[in-house]
């Protein structure tokens, strides 16, 4: 326990940055992922193609490589540098967005075909079919897998440790400079992550029960 109490400053900053990466990454991922997911089911062939290419390329790139591009590649382009934390948020968001898009798409596919057909038979437009009939139903089956994506995102924030962001993954390096036991520090980090993941899983279970599809 001394490891934490003696170094509260470092732990505080690290936890704050991890949560910051998580929430900002989630926000970018949800917005971008919804856009890409919509593109992938849209009636516009070009938009579908763009969405497919984006998902297939980014999903098959290791997140570490994406971080590599943002942390080392982006500064080489001589653009205004927003700092490593913001770049890490972008890397996390862009990577996780592909998973969000896929979850949304498969959620839409779980809605029985007859629902969309009936809505179209009533003369609803594409926008109306989506917002009034498909999305409300898809949302329910999307919640549990979406929470899994967010849990994965939370765990992925540690990768920023390799790219100059002071979050929980870096804390070992900082504290071994102060002469702390690396094993104990890392076990505490692992414990913190277990608690956070458990909390998210609890939310997931509650939402799952609340939004269970009754068909």
């Amino acid at each position, binding site marked *: 326990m001394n490891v934490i109490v003696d170094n509260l400053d470092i732990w505080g900053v690290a936890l704050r940055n991890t949560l910051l990466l998580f929430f900002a990454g989630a926000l970018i991922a949800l917005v971008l992922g919804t856009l890409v997911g919509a593109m992938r089911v849209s009636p516009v062939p070009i938009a579908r193609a763009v969405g497919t290419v984006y998902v297939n390329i980014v999903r098959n790139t290791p997140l*570490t490589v994406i971080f590599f591009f943002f942390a080392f590649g982006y500064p080489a382009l001589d653009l205004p540098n927003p700092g490593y934390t913001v770049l890490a948020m972008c890397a996390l968001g862009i990577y996780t967005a592909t998973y969000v898009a896929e979850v949304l798409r498969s959620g839409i596919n779980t809605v029985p075909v007859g629902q969309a057909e009936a809505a179209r038979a009533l003369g609803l437009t594409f926008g109306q079919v989506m917002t009034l009939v498909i999305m409300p139903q898809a949302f329910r089956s999307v919640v549990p897998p979406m929470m899994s994506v967010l849990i994965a995102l939370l765990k992925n924030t540690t990768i920023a440790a390799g790219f100059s962001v002071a979050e929980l993954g870096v804390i070992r390096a900082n504290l071994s400079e102060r002469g702390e036991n690396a094993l104990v520090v890392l076990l505490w980090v692992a414990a913190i992550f277990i608690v956070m993941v458990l909390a998210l899983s609890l939310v997931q279970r509650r939402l799952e029960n609340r939004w269970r599809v009754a068909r």
Partner: protein
Amino acid sequence: MSSVLYDLPGRRAIIRNRIIGVITVLVILGLGGFVVYRFIETGQFSAEKWYIFTFTTVWEQILAATGRTLAAFAAAAVASVVLGFVLALGRMSDHAWVRWPATGIIELFRAVPVLILMMLLYYGLPVVGVRLEAYWAVVIALAVYNGSVLAEVIRAGVESLPRGQSEAGYALGLRKAGVMRLILLPQAVRAMLPVIVAQLVVTLKDTALGYIITYNELLYYARLIGTQAQYDRPILQAGMVAAAIYIALCLVLAGIAKWVEVRMRSSQRAGRGAQATPSGRATTDTEVIAAQRGAGKFDSSAL
């Protein structure tokens, strides 16, 4: 499947779709063009930046680094599949003293980030006198994490089978081990094979985490090339080469997953027409028997 969401476009819809299409293309071209413009502006396409890639030794090193990535992947993949089966069997055991530890291990290692596991093995264990090479830290961390995930996948596969399967097995006089080995696992693995291969793609991608704990795999070598001052620090170029190799490797694995999935679906269709719906909710006894016959037929012809 998504095509049921909208009608065949009429005249107005075609025009509107074209407009949206043009806007999409313009936005993409704009973004891509801006990146290319910045590349040109900062001289990323200049010959000096790419000069280092004209050496045979560099490519040999890249090949060797890719080999080390694949070595870690192969070891971790085999170990995680084996561990996945062991943990899955443990979690489904009837004995509480087997079931609880297995459940604990699975839940524990699924909750800890892989990178933290690697750091624990690489930086943490030396404190208690165990010194692991970076390679082993990567392999063990990946194996333990993906093994736990695969255990859940396999368990889900077994539990998705209709109850009649195991009941029929017991009725034939098989013991627990026999029911599991001869009846439940073969079907569960068949049903879950696409998911298992997809998890292997994740394993391959996660080998890149080894870069952070200084395992000299592909990305680590890319960073090494990218910081060579006498070759004008070609960090973006090195990153692009590494990314292309990673993407190619992952696409090959993902392609295998797709192929397996398509093959299974077609063989299932040939074997049993009635099992078109994968959800085994309303399967009758005759369907199960038909499915077993179909599966049996397929297996004997495949061998």
